[in-house]
């Protein structure tokens, strides 16, 4: 059952991504001011959404672990944070490529860029800490604490954007005030968000399975040593 779901979701993600890439590159016209490079937004923005949501969900599962001491939740938290970190990296790299073309520099110390980089660093630290601890329950407990500190900090970091002068283009989606995208362009963004979300879920599920197997190996090893 779980396998079928996983394969189905992978197929859905692959189909959607192919279709979206076809539309993004061959159907959509160039943007008036930015030319061809604006297409990068179709990956840049969904990646940011998924990364930030993922860090929040990671905190949720870390809390769930602390309340229940069930290592399964720790495995989910790890998988979610790992995948979110990849999407945060995608967001930073695509943003950087866009900035090189439009702003003329690879990096600008704008508040939103800085915030995303800080989030990336915080959760990279989370994964580094996980590698540094051998004992599974200690690892789960301490990394849950780091995840909670990190997620609380992300909110404060992100809030400071409001008080910083920013050169980042304003919000482009219509759900926020002052949206600046044509409806046809925006719909494709949500389709791509869906495709990437499906991909993210597949990746998290694969990581969860690996975490489960490694827990099993670990307990078998302990059993073998106890004889």
């Amino acid at each position, binding site marked *: 059952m779980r396998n079928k779901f996983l394969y189905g979701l992978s197929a859905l993600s692959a189909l959607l991504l192919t279709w979206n890439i076809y539309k993004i590159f061959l159907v959509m016209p160039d943007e008036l001011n930015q030319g061809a490079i604006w297409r990068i937004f179709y990956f840049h923005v969904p990646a940011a959404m998924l990364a930030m949501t993922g860090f929040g969900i990671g905190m949720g599962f870390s809390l769930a672990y602390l309340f229940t001491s069930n290592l399964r939740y720790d495995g989910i938290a790890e998988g979610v944070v790992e995948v979110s970190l990849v999407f945060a990296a995608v967001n930073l790299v695509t943003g950087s490529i866009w900035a090189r073309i439009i702003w003329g520099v690879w990096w600008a110390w704008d508040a939103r860029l800085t915030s995303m980089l800080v989030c990336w660093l915080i959760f990279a630290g989370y994964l580094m800490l996980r590698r540094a601890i051998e004992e599974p329950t200690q690892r789960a407990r301490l990394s*849950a604490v780091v995840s909670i500190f990190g997620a609380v900090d992300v909110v404060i970091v992100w809030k400071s954007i409001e008080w910083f002068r920013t050169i980042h283009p304003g919000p482009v989606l219509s759900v926020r005030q002052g949206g600046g995208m044509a409806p046809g362009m925006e719909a494709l963004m949500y389709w791509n968000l869906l495709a990437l979300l499906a991909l993210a879920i597949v990746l998290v599920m694969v990581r969860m399975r690996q975490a489960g197997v490694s827990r099993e190996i670990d307990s078998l090893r302990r059993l073998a040593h106890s004889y």
Partner: protein
Amino acid sequence: MLLDPLFLFLRQSFTIAAKDLRSELRTKEALNASLAFSLVILVLFSFAFDPSTDQFHDFSGGFLWLVFTFAGTLVLNRSFARELQNDCLDALVASPVPASALFIGKALANLFLLMVIEFVSLLAFAFFYDVNWTRQAWSLLLVIALGTWALTVIGTVFSALTVNLRLRELMLPTLVYPLLIPALMAAILLTTDLLGGTPIGGENLIWMKVLVAFDVIFTAVALAMMDTVLVG
């Protein structure tokens, strides 16, 4: 009495803080290393930038806080590592003192040590780089105290968290510095303003709020989490 548990908590915290300060002041391990380190960084700055230009004063807050955080990590690293010898940490955890009182006690001791180091660094900074820090002295001390409390709260929790790791000395700064960024940003901006003679109020008031909010939020999170970190 209704307030008895509070008094007990405070007394336990102060006992821990007094113990930490006493053992630090007798050996002066972290204090000496940290003071020497901050002086070295202060000298290094003179090569990184031309200290005679006016532009230097625009960076003064940033320089000071870099010294404070780098030197502070040395003290914070020792905070819980000191308890590893003779299994003192196990004894502390087994004692009737709750983890939150242990945390507050350790944090107060660290705050005191860091403030001493920072004050000496500030004097050295003013001496070497011709900075007049007395124009807004009380506000400056307040900002330094609030910023240091942010550093102390996060640092003390993570000092406890990393105490049993092999790579303790490396993990602590890697985890602590990114988390501290909002507080450091606020403290740096305010310190630069105050060293330039601009009082707190108007435009920079928002950073004071950020600093206070950071302190309050993370003190609460730390108090809630300390039991999990130490005991499980």
